[in-house]
């Protein structure tokens, strides 16, 4: 029984040593390393979720570095602001989040001013105004001109033959298509002409 008691005590002691090793503050050089990493990252602020950070996070925020550089700007934060102000660019939002430190403050800034300041050297992206309502200047209205038809041209080849046909080569297919187009235009023209001639006697 002696030996098992000894074993038990030894186990307790090793456990105590191990736990106290875990609890002791990290030696000075580790935060220094972390700071080096973060200062490299400052040019493009990203959440510092390295493994060393998770265990030594306390020592970082407790005054080694100035307060505002420790702000993490996550893509989620940018996304929230962007959903409120869709025309804001990512760099605008990031800049303001860096300054304000919270989504609420940035959103308030945006609500108050209607926009957020741009980072240096960046300007508002060119607004792509809808160009839908500017009619093109020169388009020939005349279909006969457009498709090179003469007024009394007859369609070569019987239309029924063309129906449902799939040419063997692409040249053949485009000829078929061309013929069908001509046929449709000329038929429409005939119909309109007969309609007009029917209407005219009524007018006169």
């Amino acid at each position, binding site marked *: 029984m002696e030996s098992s008691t000894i074993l038990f005590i030894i186990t307790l002691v090793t456990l105590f040593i191990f736990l106290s090793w875990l609890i002791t503050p990290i030696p000075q050089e580790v935060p220094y390393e972390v700071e080096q990493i973060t200062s490299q990252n400052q040019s493009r602020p990203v959440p510092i979720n390295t493994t060393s950070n998770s265990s030594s996070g306390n020592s970082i925020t407790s005054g080694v570095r100035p307060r505002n550089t420790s702000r993490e700007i996550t893509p989620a934060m940018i996304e929230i602001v962007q959903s409120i102000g869709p025309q804001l660019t990512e760099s605008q939002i990031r800049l303001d989040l860096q300054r304000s430190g919270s989504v609420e403050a940035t959103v308030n800034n945006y609500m108050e001013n209607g926009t957020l300041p741009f980072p240096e050297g960046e300007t508002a992206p060119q607004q792509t105004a809808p160009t839908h309502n*500017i*009619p*093109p200047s020169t388009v020939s209205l005349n279909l006969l001109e457009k498709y090179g038809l003469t007024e009394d041209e007859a369609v070569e080849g019987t239309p029924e033959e063309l129906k449902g046909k799939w040419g063997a080569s692409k040249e053949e297919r485009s000829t078929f298509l061309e013929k069908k187009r001509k046929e449709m235009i000329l038929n429409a023209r005939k119909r309109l002409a007969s309609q007009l001639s029917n209407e005219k006697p009524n007018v006169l």
Partner: protein
Amino acid sequence: MAPKSTAQKRLLKEYQQLCKDSPPGIIAGPVSEDDIFLWECLVEGPPDTPYENGVFPATLTFPKDYPLGPPVLKFNPPLLHPNIYADGTVCISILHPPGEDPNQYERPEERWSPVQSVEKILLSVMSMLAEPNCESGANVDACKLFRDNRQEYDNQIRQHVMKSLGL
């Protein structure tokens, strides 16, 4: 021959189907098979509308991710219609990108999805010509004219049709 993308294969298939069994009043096909993403279409004006007897040419421009994204349909020359922009671009629900309408106006199944096709677009366009929808107007001037002065609206379209057929 270069390997064909999904979009090219699908467009070629639709072209073939339209050739074999095309709905009346519609002709559509690529301008040149070397560039299958640009089509030229002819749409006949539906009877008993001011567009009757008219033949209206339009271009269809397909995105490279077709059929995931909808093509752009543009009448060339532009056509006077409440749902056609002054530059000829058609604005109807089937040509809008898939998903929910931010304005909750269109149902998702009305919008573009890969189950739609060129044929369905052109058939929608024909019914659009027959029944303009002023509630979601693209061309405000045409909307006003259609609502307030139908006679002048009809007249302008008939003039357009006659001019286009050289009569």
